[in-house]
């Protein structure tokens, strides 16, 4: 989220590879532990991050080499997660956010990625990156 002065923050740039999904999920949730999330909140964050990373690898880069940047900030009980890629972006973001919408039904995509991100986090912003690719920002207040 723009304009927030975080108390603690990390930034990770990593290859857009499927093998890194679990590592990124673990990194983000390990960082979140300092604001004492419940197990359910950890799983919410883990799922939302996994959806955003999968989208970058599968849709954004479509299997080609690329980088994903993950920026996570914490302020009091709020966690703010931004995931940036330089892939192809999304032509119609509002349509892509509709439940079960997928351009890849043949590849057994459920089209539920953005729906799960929206359901499990308090806010979701999806924008095409002016440099090419996608910027996904999500926040969640830990109770």
């Amino acid at each position, binding site marked *: 989220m723009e304009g927030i002065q975080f108390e603690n923050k990390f930034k990770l740039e990593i290859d857009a590879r*499927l*093998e890194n*999904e*679990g590592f990124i*999920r673990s990194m983000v949730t390990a960082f979140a532990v300092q604001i004492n999330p419940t*197990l*359910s909140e950890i*799983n*919410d964050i*883990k*799922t939302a991050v*996994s*959806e955003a990373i*999968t989208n970058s*690898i*599968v849709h954004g880069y479509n299997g080609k080499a690329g980088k994903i940047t993950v920026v996570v900030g914490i302020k009091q009980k709020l966690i703010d997660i931004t995931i940036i890629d330089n892939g192809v972006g999304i032509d119609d973001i509002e349509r892509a956010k509709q439940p079960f919408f997928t351009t890849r039904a043949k*590849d*057994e*995509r*459920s*089209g*539920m*990625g953005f*729906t*799960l991100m929206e*359901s499990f986090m308090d806010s979701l912003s999806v924008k095409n990156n002016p440099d090419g690719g996608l910027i996904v920002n999500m926040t969640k207040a830990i109770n």
Partner: protein
Amino acid sequence: MEIKYKSTDSALIANLSGELDECTAEYVRMSLDTVLSDLRLSSPAKVVLDFGSVTFMDSTGIGVLLGRYNKFSKQGIEIAIKNASGHVDRILKMTGIYEIMPKIS
């Protein structure tokens, strides 16, 4: 992710353990497709997916399940799900998977 199979009188039980995400989805697809394709010989047949040891699943897992349903339901194979708990159970409910793959105890 690992899948172990066990046959009972009433069904084939597939015990899934580990994380079901984009990284492991292809293994799950291939393993289930190989085993379920053999079942067609003795159809109608029932398969129970035991999610008791699945520690994480995202929407990629939903895609895998929908794909197996589309592929095998028309061949008379019934697929049910048991022991999904917590977060995994929540995703299965939210996405309507239990409407096509009943939750059994």
